[in-house]
């Protein structure tokens, strides 16, 4: 039978990546170093890490990733020693293990994508692990292995050697689930077998323990099998029997030797005992009835299929060979690996989602309730004639509709929750990042993570990875000072970087707060002037902090390897806004900086404010709205007869009339009769002029581009309660219009 293993590769990759993530996060646990294996937390961490490595190793070669299996073997050995307390986990060892995690991830991703992995890097890490392993006194296991591998050479030189096997099971052999008959069946596949049974030790029936094995056998095997082949047949019972295997050059002599001693007394009647389990009794009985005489044995041997000599050992040999070929050159083996394996469909990486069974169950329940509600409405109205609708029936109908509405709302929430995954998906990568930054920048940082179980939409989370990584990198690079500078400022040498996620209304709010130097107002302003970035007159702190989001702004004195990766905070902010999020910044000189990301829970739903302009209704994303007010005439000014501004707490904001922007008929009349909504985008702030604020809604975002095209100033559409379409305003674009 041939089984196509490629069907399991996807599952293997998924669970391996998960295992690697688990290894990484456990390795980064603060209590892991120097903890004895018996200590609760540290010990359990090591066990978890070991299991993950062990699983990857065990499965990798099975699914054709021999190089990964071979590489992981060293990792596993190291972990095993640490787990058993034979070796402490040092800082160096942890770094090496983290490096190894990266290597395995790299190898697996490369295999998945059909690209090259860094073979030299893998080799370096492999050597480092080997060197570390060679450092210590070899564990008992290694010694045992070298002793066990020396298999005795086969004694019979001729092709058809004759082997004599004396097999005396211990009483408890059956208790291991092994059965002498099956061993004989296996031997029959190796050659011509004759079996003699010795029942001399079989006690009288009343003394017989039905689960014990009292028989012993002498077998003769004629065939091309080696002694190792034969030992393999007894491999599983080696400890449960006395076994002697001798090669005999002249079969006749051997046979003569055997016969007198092992004459079987077949006068034992099958014990008629009824133990707890019938099969237990059946075993010994089968043993002495079926193979008691030499006469019976050859017949049994003949009956064995002859076409399969040595097939089983050959198959068993293949596996070790496959794994050792990968050993010498990691690079070569990997290349072979890659040629053999077509790239695995990588879409599954992001297009599949793991959903807790409870969530699915909840959905099923809700659909059940929906069906009930529908049935209820059916009985009320299904076959009713118009004249049947009296007040009572109408009231029942109303109740039914209310119930249906509740069901729908719950169903909607439940369906959306399927897409929700905990933010630990992103947070879990950060300890590693911070740790790497610490060593690269010679800084000391304590990372505190709160609320990692907070859930949000998978789509949002995926888009959050890059911005969050960048913000954290920035905080460590630019925010937190060097230990010396901190000490000089009277702060603890170790800086604290706090990540906190929480739900707030329909949003998720993520704070990234450091206790570093804070933003330097003067330096930011100087930099902005140098780079020609416009700065408002008498800028508030808030205005100054916003400068770091300006395109092309970088505060680093030197573009470091860490932060200078061609991505500025402007891109970070754009990324966050592309998922309808908002990025705010607060900073206090000397005390630190706090960035706050506010995100909708899902990409499909938007918290919006509906506004009326003439006869049209538009939706404004709530996250963009700073405030709304009814302006007094003295707050409004026109500039050069064209543009208008509204003065707000000493600031002048451009007034954008939506009826002008969208050429809507209706009054473009007196501003003081309408409402001004102050909105903020990545680039700017503006005051939108509308006729009326209507209500707050959660709206389902629909694309205009599916059947139409992009529309300037509009980011999408939604369907209102009355079935009409309302357009969602693109605040980013609107603030750019003036």
């Amino acid at each position, binding site marked *: 039978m041939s089984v196509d*293993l490629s069907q399991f590769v996807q599952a293997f990759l998924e669970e391996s990546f998960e295992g690697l993530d688990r290894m990484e996060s456990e390795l980064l646990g603060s209590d892991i170093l120097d903890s004895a294996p018996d200590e609760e937390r540290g010990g359990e961490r090591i066990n978890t890490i070991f299991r993950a490595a062990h699983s990857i190793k065990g499965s990798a070669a099975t699914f054709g990733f021999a190089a990964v299996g071979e590489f992981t073997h060293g990792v596993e050995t190291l972990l095993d020693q640490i787990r058993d307390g034979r070796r402490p986990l040092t800082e160096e060892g942890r770094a090496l293990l983290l490096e190894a995690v990266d290597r395995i991830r790299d190898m697996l991703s490369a295999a998945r994508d059909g690209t090259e992995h860094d073979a030299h890097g893998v080799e370096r890490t492999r050597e480092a692990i080997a060197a570390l392993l060679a450092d210590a006194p070899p564990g008992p296991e290694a010694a045992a292995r070298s002793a066990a591998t020396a298999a005795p050479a086969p004694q019979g030189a001729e092709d058809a050697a004759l082997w004599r096997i004396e097999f005396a099971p211990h009483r408890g052999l059956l208790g291991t689930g092994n059965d002498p008959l*099956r061993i004989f069946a296996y031997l029959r596949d190796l050659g011509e077998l004759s079996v003699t049974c010795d029942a001399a030790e079989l006690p009288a029936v009343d003394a017989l323990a039905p689960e014990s094995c009292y028989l012993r056998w002498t077998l003769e095997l004629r065939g091309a099998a080696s002694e190792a082949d034969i030992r393999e047949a007894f491999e599983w019972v080696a400890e449960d029997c006395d076994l002697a295997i001798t090669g005999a050059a002249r079969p006749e002599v051997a046979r003569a030797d055997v016969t007198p001693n092992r004459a079987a007394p077949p006068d034992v009647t099958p014990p008629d005992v009824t133990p707890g389990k019938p099969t237990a009794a059946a075993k010994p009985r089968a043993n002495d009835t079926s193979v008691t005489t030499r006469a019976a044995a050859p017949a049994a041997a003949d009956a064995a299929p002859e076409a399969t000599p040595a097939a089983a050992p050959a198959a068993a040999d293949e596996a070790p060979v496959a794994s050792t070929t990968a050993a010498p050159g990691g690079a070569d083996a990997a290349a072979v690996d890659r040629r053999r394996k077509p790239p695995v469909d990588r879409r599954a990486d992001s297009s599949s989602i793991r959903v807790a069974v409870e969530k699915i169950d909840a959905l099923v329940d809700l659909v059940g309730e929906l069906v009930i509600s529908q049935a209820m409405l059916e009985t009320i109205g299904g076959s009713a004639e118009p004249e049947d609708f009296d007040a009572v029936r109408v009231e029942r109908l109303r109740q039914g509709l209310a119930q249906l509405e509740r069901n729908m709302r719950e169903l909607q929430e439940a369906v959306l929750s399927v897409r929700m995954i905990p933010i630990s998906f992103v947070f879990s990568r950060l300890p590693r990042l911070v740790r790497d930054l610490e060593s690269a920048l010679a800084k000391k940082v304590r990372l505190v993570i709160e609320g990692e179980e907070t859930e949000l939409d998978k789509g949002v989370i995926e888009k959050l990875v890059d911005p969050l990584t960048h913000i954290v990198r920035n905080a460590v690079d630019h925010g937190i000072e060097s230990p010396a500078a901190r000490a000089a400022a009277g702060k603890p040498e170790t800086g604290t970087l706090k990540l906190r996620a929480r739900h707030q209304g329909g949003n998720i709010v993520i704070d990234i707060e450091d206790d570093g130097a804070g933003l330097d107002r003067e330096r930011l302003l100087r930099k902005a002037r140098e780079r020609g970035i416009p700065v408002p007159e008498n800028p508030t702190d808030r205005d100054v902090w916003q400068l770091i989001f300006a395109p092309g702004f970088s505060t680093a004195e030197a573009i470091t390897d860490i932060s200078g990766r061609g991505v500025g905070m402007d891109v970070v902010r754009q990324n966050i806004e592309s998922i309808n999020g908002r990025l705010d910044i607060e900073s206090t000189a000397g005390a630190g900086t706090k960035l706050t990301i506010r995100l909708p829970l899902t990409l499909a739903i938007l918290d919006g404010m509906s506004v009326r302009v003439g006869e049209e209704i538009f939706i404004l994303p709530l996250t963009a709205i700073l405030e709304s007010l009814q302006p007094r005439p003295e707050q409004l000014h026109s500039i050069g007869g064209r543009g208008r501004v509204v003065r707000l707490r000493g600031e002048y904001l451009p007034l954008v009339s939506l009826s002008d922007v969208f050429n809507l008929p209706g009054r473009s009349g007196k501003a003081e009769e309408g409402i001004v909504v102050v909105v903020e985008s990545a680039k700017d702030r503006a005051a939108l002029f509308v006729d009326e604020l209507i209500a707050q809604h959660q709206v389902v975002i629909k694309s205009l581009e599916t059947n139409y095209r992009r529309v300037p100033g509009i980011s999408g559409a939604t369907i209102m309660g009355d079935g009409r379409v309302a357009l969602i305003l693109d605040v980013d674009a609107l603030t750019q219009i003036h």
Partner: protein
Amino acid sequence: MSKILAVDDSASLRQMVCFTLKEAGHDVVEAADGAEALQFARGSAVDLVISDVNMPQMDGITLVRELRGLPEYRFTPILLLTTESADDKKQAGKAAGATGWLVKPFDPETLLSTIKRVLG
């Protein structure tokens, strides 16, 4: 056709084992760790148990020991999935009452030829 209980915390390996055994016409029950397997075993007997050694909740060796304590499993063949390096695991498994082992990595053919040694 035999009824086989396959225990492994690695979903991919478990899938492979189950698929192979099912293709060969066996009836397969899956469990993700020792505890889950034991839970099942308390309620019904099988003809063969194939179990990984390193698993969360309950490891394979403990599972073997627990199973051997159940009357229905006293003689049931139990094979452990081990890796070539784990000689001590093999011995620990044997001591707990395991029938034999299957060395990882293995392919479906090896799996089938190995279970033939205990299912006859």
